[in-house]
């Protein structure tokens, strides 16, 4: 099986879907000829033609609005918003339009669109190239929200997102594009080659939306995480020697509550980790759901370990980023309660 980076895996997913389905179109800022600023669409225009893979004006609301119209016609547009930090001009098209089109038309129209966007920090991006706004989208009923943590999942989930009949917001942690970054920013970068989840089939396969993955079974505490934090959590577990069960949610909406519930009932403890800001973050939703479903089983308060409630500061990004030391401390707090 070929080894792929997450960039190559995402590229392969779009390539496979462009090949299989003439209704799939790929567009966004710099995605056509150049192949995207992160190279996720490299070569796709040359292979599939300029009418299927093309550059757009710099207008995120325009990109998503056009995709909604195409989706309503019956196409399956896959659009890229260059950075998640630039997605807000498209907020109205996503929340008021894409998310509600099916509902308000009584099922007559729908918007089967996929909105890809790189998210997360750790690249010296400052407040405009580092954000993790997934909770804003998870809050909108009618949108599905996905965030993969590795090349294998990225491809399978992106194919599932493209084939999904509802709008999907697909966040790609850019710090994971080239390797399983575990938060140790002062150590050499690890590549995906050699990592089992960097082994990616060339052809078509899907990972259903709404299925979490237990990446490390354990009995002492459950760690709920997604995106970059999956690798940070795995590192923290290994370094602390705590027998934690690490669950990669993969999809925030729909949420795989069954896998979460099974785990927390077994461990009796739960730590939720995300890079995004804390207040109103997706961790709050997870914490509430775990409390509702597992109250009788909990032996400690649910710990939330998140980014601070500040914009992402460039010079202090490693103080901001919830690295393995902070995650390890949260695991200990949960265990020693």
């Amino acid at each position: 099986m070929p080894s792929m980076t997450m960039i190559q895996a995402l590229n392969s997913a779009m390539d496979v879907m462009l090949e299989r389905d003439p209704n799939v179109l790929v567009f966004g800022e710099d995605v056509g000829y150049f192949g995207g600023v992160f190279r996720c669409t490299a070569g796709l225009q040359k292979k599939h033609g300029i009418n299927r893979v093309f550059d757009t004006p710099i207008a995120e609301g325009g990109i998503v609005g056009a995709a909604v119209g195409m989706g309503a016609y019956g196409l399956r547009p896959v659009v890229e918003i260059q950075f998640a930090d630039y997605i807000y001009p498209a907020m109205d098209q996503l929340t008021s339009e894409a998310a509600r089109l099916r509902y308000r038309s009584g099922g007559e129209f729908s918007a089967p669109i996929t909105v890809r966007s790189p998210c997360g920090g750790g690249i010296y991006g400052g407040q405009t190239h580092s954000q993790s706004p997934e909770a804003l989208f998870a809050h909108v009923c009618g949108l599905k929200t996905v965030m993969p943590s590795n090349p294998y999942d990225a491809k399978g989930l992106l194919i599932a997102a493209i084939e999904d009949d509802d709008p999907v917001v697909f966040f790609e942690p850019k710090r994971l594009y080239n390797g399983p970054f575990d938060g140790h920013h002062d150590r050499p970068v690890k590549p995906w080659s050699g990592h089992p989840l960097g082994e990616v089939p060339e052809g078509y396969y899907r990972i259903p939306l709404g299925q979490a993955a237990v990446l490390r079974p354990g009995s002492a505490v459950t760690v709920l995480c997604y995106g970059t934090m999956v690798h940070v959590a795995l590192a923290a577990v290994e370094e602390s020697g705590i027998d934690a069960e690490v669950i990669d949610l993969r999809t925030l909406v729909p949420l795989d509550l069954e896998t979460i519930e099974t785990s927390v009932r077994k461990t009796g403890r739960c730590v939720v980790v995300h890079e995004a800001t804390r207040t109103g973050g997706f961790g709050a939703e997870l914490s509430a759901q775990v409390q509702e479903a597992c109250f009788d089983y909990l032996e400690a308060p649910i710990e939330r370990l998140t980014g601070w409630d500040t914009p992402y500061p460039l010079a202090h990004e490693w103080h901001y980023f919830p690295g393995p030391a902070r995650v390890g401390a949260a695991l200990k707090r949960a265990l020693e309660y």
Partner: protein
Amino acid sequence: MTSSAAAGQGATTEGELRPLRFHVPEPKCRPGSAPDLSSIELPTQVLPRPAIDTPRERLHEYAYGLIRVLGDDHRASGDWAPSLDADRLRQGLRSMLLTRLFDQRMLRAQRTGKTSFYMQCTGEEAIAVAQAMALEPNDMCFPSYRQQGLLVARGWSLVDMMCQVYNNSADRMKGRQLPVMYSAKEAGFFSISGNLGTQAIQAVGWAMASAYKGDTRLAATWVGDGTTAEADFHYALTFAAVYRVPVLLNVVNNQWAISSFQGIAGGEATTFAARAIGYGLPGLRVDGNDFLAVYAATRWAIARARAGHGATVLELYTYRAAAHSSSDDPSGYRPDGEAACWPLGDPIERLKQHLIALGEWSEERHAALTDELTEVVKVAGKEAESHGTLGRQTPDPRTMFDDVFKELPEHLLRQREQLGS
């Protein structure tokens, strides 16, 4: 009801209808081919300078023309030629050259790991510098990330700019912002957001506030050709037209928005200056590499705004000679050597040759000025570096919680405690 509506007769019988198409613009040249900018049509005639109270409906042709002052003979001609004495011209030349040398040093600093990121304005220096000289020192600028020349022309501290680029302990933005996203209220330079176009409409609001207060300060804003596609730009034009706002709306058409040529922003069908017409604003297209033309057109727009005739859209026609940023490599999307083919030349070279033609400058004096300014930048660089570079001597991490709100709320106090010292 549904079926009868669907059965309605169209105006055309079905056999006559042809499959529809859409069009994706493409530039003439891509990497691997020789640069060819011969399709750029430069108007041979420059339209005369109109009176500042000319009704906007009589100005439409200015959106399709090109205001130029400096000819191929390096002489100034036509009634747009501003009355700038040799000292002012040399001041403009100095600021442009200083901007370019500053850019060169900071790009080298990025390449050697002293900063994470940098953006040059190579080839576009005349725009910010001439416009800063045309504006009053306290007129408020809402720039994009390629108008560092405004700060340089206004005599702002290079050390202060460098400390921001280095995100060091003397960075007044406390290490928070991406390099080059300056803020200098004292210099009439609004905090750069980094998100595209958002600040165009804010400039309009600022100018409305100035007018509301009976103040005399104008606002000016700059967006690139690519950014004209953002809705915020259209908010700016609409509000500026509706309220006849004393604001300058500049579009720096430098031909490239990262890898997308200006056709992707709509430049294939019309000019960016012509955007103004639909909103009921005057739009002027100006040779952005002609220091005198930029100055003259800006003075015209300022005079018009000050006389109560409202906003003007200026399209400053230029070429982004350098990469979009230190993260970008243009060899992946445009032919090598395209900048050298730009038919409107280099702004510094053109003003230099003009001064030489006037007998007010020489190659020797230019070389001496280059040496002097190189030293100025070097000295500033050393001082800035003494306050730290990327990751060395950063501001206190605990300051990251400041300024989220005016007062630190309870939950951020708690989080600051958790961060530790």
